[in-house]
């Protein structure tokens, strides 16, 4: 048992980084506009399928990793403009139901376009296979995923703390009326913020397609752990989403080691404990990077 501990812990962290990036996208959108984006998984799947189609057309994987999320963002902007925006003034239930309906429609649309069965989407040969980490053999592609996720998180942090637009975004989270009164176009803020969230989802979607399988339901399967991650990390905190993701990843991999059958339920148990001890989540405070 003990000899498994190191590899499992490491593996859990990698898995956690993955949940973190999905949760980050969810949090971004939720923090600013109160929209619970149930279609987040669909944007992941969409980016995955787009990347798959690009690789099939001989576009290099690296380009697909950037282009596919960008196209997903375009779709996201249209969705935000036409469907989500009219609901900002209403109760969160409205946008939740709308995005939920959207995710169901998207799933069937994927089925129509790319077929009901999974499609073979593999990482490029350079990233296939396993590398030795000393204490274990670890898939090269997973190491690549960690690197990409770290870059994405760092870029997001820099954007939010070091650019004028990022500062406006954070200010808008704290007080939308005030920032609007000061002359900032909040509609543009909302659209950019939504796009950022979708872009993160898109990257996660392409990476998930290469690591796991790619089928019409694959994105939605990852949505639940991401929601749990948000709750554990605490609403309103992007930093919380990252820590929450890592905790969920470790919880899943550790329970797999000791009580495999309980691996799925472990994240919910963790969520319950966190909510009992600290009802607002670990870092749940007002404001981004609070």
């Amino acid at each position, binding site marked *: 048992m003990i000899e498994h501990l190191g590899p499992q812990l490491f593996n859990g962290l990698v898995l956690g980084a993955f949940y973190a990036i999905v949760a980050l996208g969810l949090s971004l959108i939720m923090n600013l506009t109160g929209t*619970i984006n149930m279609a987040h998984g669909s944007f992941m799947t969409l980016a995955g399928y787009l990347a798959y189609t690009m690789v099939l057309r001989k576009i290099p994987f690296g380009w697909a990793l950037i282009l596919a999320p960008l196209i997903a963002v375009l779709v996201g902007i249209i969705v935000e403009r036409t469907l989500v925006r009219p609901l900002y003034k209403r109760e969160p239930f409205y946008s939740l139901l709308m995005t939920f309906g959207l995710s169901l429609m998207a799933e*069937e649309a994927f089925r129509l376009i790319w077929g*009901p*069965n999974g499609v073979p989407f593999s990482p490029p040969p350079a990233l296939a296979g*396993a590398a030795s980490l000393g204490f274990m053999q670890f*898939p090269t592609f997973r190491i690549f995923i960690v690197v990409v996720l770290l870059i994405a998180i760092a870029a997001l942090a820099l954007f939010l703390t070091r650019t004028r637009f990022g500062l406006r975004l954070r200010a808008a989270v704290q007080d939308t009326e005030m920032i609007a009164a000061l002359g900032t176009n909040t509609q543009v803020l909302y659209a950019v913020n939504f796009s950022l969230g979708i872009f993160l989802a898109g990257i996660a979607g392409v990476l998930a397609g290469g690591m*796991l*399988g790619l089928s019409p339901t694959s994105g939605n*399967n990852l949505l*639940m752990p991401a929601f749990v991650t948000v709750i554990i990390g605490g609403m309103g905190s992007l930093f919380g989403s990252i820590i929450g993701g890592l905790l969920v990843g470790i919880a899943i991999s550790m329970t797999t080691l000791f009580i495999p059958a309980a691996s799925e339920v472990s994240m919910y148990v963790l969520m319950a404990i966190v909510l009992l001890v600290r009802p607002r989540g670990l870092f749940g405070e007002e404001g981004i990077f609070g």
Partner: protein
Amino acid sequence: MSRPVLNRRKFVTIAGAGSAAAVFGIPAYIPRVGEAADAIKIGLLEPYTGVYAGPAENETHGFEMATDAWNKRGGIMGRKIELVKEDEQNDPGVAAQKARKLVNQDKVAALCGTVSSGVSLSVAGVANTLGTLFMDSGGHSDDVTGKSCHWNVFRTCHSTWMETHATGYALQKRFGKKWFLITPDYAYGHSLEEGFKDVLAHNGGRIVGNELTPLGTTDFSSYLTKIDAAKPDLVLVLVQGDDYTNCLKQMNQFGLLKKYPVGGPQVELEPLFGLGPEAREGYWGIEWYYKSEKTLGKNNKVAQEFVAESIKRYGRPPTARNAFGYITLDRLAHAMNDAKSTDPVKVARAIEGVRFTSIFAGSAYYRKEDHQLMWPMWVAKIRPNGTPGDKYDLFDVTDINAAEAVEQTIAQKEAVCKLGYPGA
């Protein structure tokens, strides 16, 4: 501009409700074919939406081909066959309700279909209550023709017992007796596990690791890292569908496919198409195959026509699922024709025990004692890239097992299965 505040409590409630809805599925509507006067209606229940949409579509293609073939010959007793399709959404509850609707409202003469065993058992139960025939074309659990058997229920695809025994013997012969199992943690998986344990009990050998994975597991890495320490002779992958794709893909990424022989009780062509060639590996149980004399038989005209016609109609070769659909409807139609009736008891009596030839090698029969179709079960080695000119040609069929050699004996079945014909 103001917006409603979303607090944590509200978020938990909403996200919970939303996710619950996502988990429990959504109703969908599949339009029915037009009504024809005096046609014999057959109800077809398949999971057209959800994870098993692929197999559902292929089974339906098989049903359609058999229906068209019969109608071209003039139908059953001069009456056309009409398929009435319903989406059972891979949900036992929905399936039960749709089954009642098909029988009570559409007045179908029999029910067919299903992919997941849980749904098959649910429909079998309802059909038994309503006194209607149910032909389980695609749900594999032993119980359907075991302890939950009914006089009105027949099963075309193989039982899990047949799958595990056919592959268990074949793989043990090749690779050895220390097995590592990756098992889906629900009834189907447990029933496979029992089957493999029985094989080991007969031939000696042991299970050095058995990982129970929840249905819908996306990340298998935590389970896979345990394989190295267990040092098995063979890794058996029992998970199905998307889980199968995920698992094999990740085994490849962890370099395990190069280190350990891999195999399993069953693989279908559908999930294999979703795997890259680099992760297509091992020996697997297969239930039918479109391109081998071992599965189709020598010069089997009916089989050859079935394959050619399927490719012509649907643009790709038929899978085992297409075969299930075809065989199921074809036998049902034969029985109604022989019984000169659609009376369930008369038709059931006309199905059971009758030997027939079809689109596979040799002959077969639905066993009188448990209503399991007794047809061969094959084992194949995967060809990762197909054969030149045919990317679908992924199986190199290696072993044929007679049904009687791999299914439980009549005595074993009689101990658990009571068919309970009305008045008997």
